[in-house]
């Protein structure tokens, strides 16, 4: 037996409320991230991720409160990302009860932020989130053919996405969350080429995200090199359940909890 491949639902949280529609039955308040987190835990989620999409910084306190209340009730690991700009933001989230914090745009702007966080809090709680896409025709190509984007995939940076993941490892992060912006929302499956390219360059855990639409999509992402798989909307809308995803992975020979 080996360490199980983790199945991670991701919740988009805006000002303390879950943004995308939720199709769970038996919930008193389907927009409450805390209650939803507990439901995912009960369904067998191996970890939880909150993506804070709150636009206004004055509402950040609400996010911290949600993290605090979730940590009071849910006893599996919780990662929080979105809008994390400084070492002090990471500190506040960890104190509120997050186990890991993911960094994205701010790390692209200032990569040293990753090593500062890793040295202060330990590699185990620093996740580098990489929003990658194929370099569009007409733009300057990168060696891997993939580039890092920021602002939710709207802005290309010209930075090679595979090299950036490797740089994150050098700077001391404990894990890479790899989001395919091309596959995201298509429900046509994970971007296996992207996953395997990044896998070859890093030896820290790799979470694959973007494109899940069917239970059969998860095992190939693991074969391509993912240590964990993450999905958002397919879980929220009840289109896929954690249990059936794990059953399909198990049937395909993947070790799951």
């Amino acid at each position, binding site marked *: 037996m080996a360490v199980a491949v983790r199945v991670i639902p991701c919740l988009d949280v805006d000002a303390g409320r879950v943004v995308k529609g939720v199709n769970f039955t038996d919930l008193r308040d389907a927009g409450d991230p805390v209650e939803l987190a507990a439901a995912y835990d009960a369904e067998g989620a191996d970890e939880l991720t909150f993506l804070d999409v709150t636009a206004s910084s004055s509402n950040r306190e609400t996010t911290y409160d949600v993290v605090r209340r979730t940590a009071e009730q849910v006893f599996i690991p919780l990662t929080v990302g979105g809008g994390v700009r400084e070492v002090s933001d990471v500190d506040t989230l960890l104190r509120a009860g997050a*186990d890991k914090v993911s960094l994205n745009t701010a790390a692209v702007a200032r990569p040293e932020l990753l090593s500062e966080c890793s040295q202060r809090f330990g*590699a185990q709680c620093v996740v580098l989130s990489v929003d990658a896409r194929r370099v569009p025709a007409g733009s300057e190509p990168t060696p891997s053919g993939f580039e890092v984007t920021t602002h939710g995939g709207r802005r290309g940076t010209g930075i090679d996405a595979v090299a950036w993941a490797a740089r994150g490892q050098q700077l001391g992060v404990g894990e890479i969350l790899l989001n395919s912006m091309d596959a995201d929302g298509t429900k046509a499956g994970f971007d296996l080429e992207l996953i395997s390219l990044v896998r070859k360059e890093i030896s820290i855990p*790799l979470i694959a995200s973007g494109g899940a639409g069917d239970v059969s999509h998860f095992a190939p992402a693991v074969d391509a090199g993912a240590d964990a798989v993450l999905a958002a909307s397919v879980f929220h809308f009840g289109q896929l359940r954690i249990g059936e995803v794990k059953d399909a992975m198990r049937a395909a020979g993947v070790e799951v909890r």
Partner: protein
Amino acid sequence: MLDYGSGNLRSVERALRRVGADIEVTADFHAALECDGLVVPGVGAFAACMEGLTSVRGDRIVGRRLAGGRPVLGICVGMQILFERGVEHGVETEGCAQWPGTVDRLKADVVPHMGWNTVRAPAGSRLFAGLDADTRFYFVHSYAARTWELNPRPPMPEPLVTWATHGEDFVAAAENGPLVAAQFHPEKSGDAGAHLLRNWLGTLD
């Protein structure tokens, strides 16, 4: 629970409270000496944890408790610092030396070892009593004790060592009289972790 600035303090506190512990988080020397059971959590670097621990005289507290047969539970890096030494990035740091041996980097394709893994508990384990062999616990660590070197002669009781594998075998937990420790995070291991914490509480008088 010993408060020496460890980041996972609150989650361990919440998990223990959930299973019915009356818990006080303290750096007070006498309170930490006199409680029924002392929990030593820990995340991050061995050297930083050891520095924090010694700043509240935690190494002495643990030593004095064990000399008096009073239970101590170390979690994650709180377990690692019970060994003689830790080696990180080529730098050796002295530990509490309650157990002989070295904590160093795991040799595996993917490190940190992050996620839910099974363990192999020996017969007679009180910590894992009532938990099936396929029960998984949440690990997140890059370093571990890869050997167990304490083999006392009778009539001293044999320590109960629980192993896990990630790339290679390492000590996942140990029960050595009043000194008990786990490399994984029971506080993040859902119901399995709660069961294990309840088992430990059950050993306290």
